């Protein structure tokens, strides 16, 4: 009996996934306006990055405020490589693996230093490293100083420019989500969550914590660097304050918390809600600082009213609705003397307590 339920559930989930995929692919065909696809591209960029962030921070509980280091470095890598190696046109996309590799290479020493400490101190070290990178980008000459770097010209029709990037960022987002799912289901993901729950005990049980944390950190950085490269090609320029933006890291944290830290769908949902909202506010109120105040207010609301995130909270509601009038635990088969018709009905509410 249970297996039929499970099979129908799995079929529904599969069907929903197919519908979702079709909708995602058809989106730019239906909404062809560049204004709307612009929102979609940014949202997908953040879906990809926040999923990558979640693989490390959400699963391990180490909140990183330094992922802009990988994102920005990925952006700079593509820009500098294209400039110095004279890469033009569509072939700049061949540089994206280099951006990913640079993200990974930076993450190794960064992680080796930062992952020695925990909690607050880890957060502060990621902030410090973030500022070191921002300042280096502004001070070195090969990064173009405060002027930054511009992307080579892409020979695409302006009307379809956004559509190309829509599919590229969609690809990135899918890859990032698939990585998150695979990690979560693996032994490696279980080790990460063991570290989140109690690192000392995890170590006592034989988890090689440093290796596991560092692997997740590097994996997360690799994807972030790659997406940073895509972001740069879309925006066509990067300066130190835009590539290494402190608001970027805090947005990631907010997205993950709003949706549900450590879940797969949560951060994705958070990105889809917050990034378009943020973009809308900055476009709508260009002169004022109302968007900033509203963003702050949203932070407060999330922290005070949905502290565990949308996905876990809604999940609990659904569970409560489903189990209403039914025992949460299957009743133990009653002794033969008990009258069977009472199995459903009045006693259920008692069983729930």
């Amino acid at each position, binding site marked *: 009996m249970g297996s039929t339920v499970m099979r129908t559930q799995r079929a529904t989930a599969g069907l929903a996934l197919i519908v979702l995929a079709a909708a995602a692919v058809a989106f730019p065909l239906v909404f062809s306006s560049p204004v709307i696809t612009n929102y979609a591209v940014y949202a997908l960029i953040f879906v990809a990055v926040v999923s990558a962030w979640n693989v490390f921070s959400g699963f391990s509980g180490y909140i990183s405020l330094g992922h802009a280091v990988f994102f920005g470095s990925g952006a700079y890598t593509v820009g500098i490589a294209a400039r110095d190696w004279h890469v033009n046109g569509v072939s700049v996309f061949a540089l994206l693996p280099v951006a990913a590799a640079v993200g990974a290479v930076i993450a190794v020493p960064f992680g080796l230093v930062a992952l020695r400490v925990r909690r607050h101190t880890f957060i502060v*070290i990621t902030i410090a490293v973030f500022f070191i990178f921002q300042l280096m980008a502004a001070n070195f000459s090969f990064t173009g100083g405060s002027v930054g770097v511009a992307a080579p010209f892409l020979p695409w029709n302006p009307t379809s420019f956004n559509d190309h990037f829509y599919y590229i960022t969609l690809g990135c987002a899918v890859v990032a989500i698939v990585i998150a799912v695979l990690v979560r289901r693996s032994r490696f993901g279980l080790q990460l969550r063991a570290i989140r729950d109690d690192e000392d005990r995890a170590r006592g049980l034989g988890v090689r914590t440093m290796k596991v944390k560092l692997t997740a950190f590097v994996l997360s950085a690799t994807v972030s660097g790659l997406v940073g490269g895509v972001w740069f090609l879309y925006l066509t320029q990067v300066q130190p304050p835009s590539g290494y933006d402190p608001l970027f890291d805090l947005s990631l944290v907010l997205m993950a918390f709003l949706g549900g830290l450590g879940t797969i769908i949560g951060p994705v949902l958070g990105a889809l809600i917050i990034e378009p909202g943020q973009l809308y506010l900055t476009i709508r109120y260009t002169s*004022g600082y109302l968007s900033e105040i509203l963003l702050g207010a949203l932070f407060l609301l999330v922290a005070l009213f949905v502290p565990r995130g949308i996905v876990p909270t809604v999940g609990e509601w659904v569970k409560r609705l489903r189990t209403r009038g039914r025992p949460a635990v299957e009743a133990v088969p009653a002794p033969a003397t008990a009258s069977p018709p009472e199995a459903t009905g009045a006693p259920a509410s008692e069983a729930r307590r």
Partner: protein
Amino acid sequence: MARQIYQAIADGILVGGVYALMAVGLTLIFGVLDIINIAQGVLVILGAYLSYELSVRLHLDLFLGLLITVPAMFVIGVVIQWAFIRRLRGRERTSMTLLVTYAVALIVEGILYEIYGANPKQLNASYVQSSVHVLGFYLSDIYLYGFVLAVAIVVALYAVLYRSTFGRSVRATMQDETAARLIGIDVNRVAAITFGLGIAVTAAGGMVFGATNTFNPNSGYDLISRLLAIIILGGLGSIGGALVASVFMLTVESLVDIWSPEWAIVVFYAALVVVLVVRPTGFFGRQPVRAQ
């Protein structure tokens, strides 16, 4: 050359005193409430704007104005703690408090932008421009006064913490919150007052900062990252450590500044990373940071 180095050290020590004024509040809040108050930087700037308002509109002396701004900031601190931070509990408290204090920072910054705009301001008084000539060094008056103020405030905080009943309950809460609650300490009250004190101290720091630097609502971010580096280096929760680390970091920055002003701030953060690799507890850490 040697002369330049001595002057840089003297400057570093004095500026370090000003940073200590801001960092002490942050480390005190961490010690008692176990949270990192990201809003501290913006609240320093808010303190500077309050002083600006008093000196420009009411022509009040900057140091005299502190008699108004310090209590005002105390009230603001207590309100923030009572309204937002008190409610946070559970496993994700560390990250949630980060979010909440960051939200407060964003809101305060946005409001300051709406009122004052982005143009940089600076506090002015007769002693801001003048300097004294001691043993062949030129020392700016405002930095000297600021340093004296910093030392006075740190001494006063020590006196409160180690010579009063309230201070004893604060230290008890720092050591073990559950045990403190069990012996009848009103932990919520201690937390609210400590948060208020930590913010009140920044009013003084903000005034001296505003008199020695130009500031706009955005200046808080640069400040908070430096302050965080300082309190980690000093050992989280250690007031003396914050004082020493401020002086150390600012002296290092001031020395590097002789050769290259651009790289001075990078060295500032790099110093933090290097020290933590060698000594994860910071200078005066009570317990290993990695054990927390």
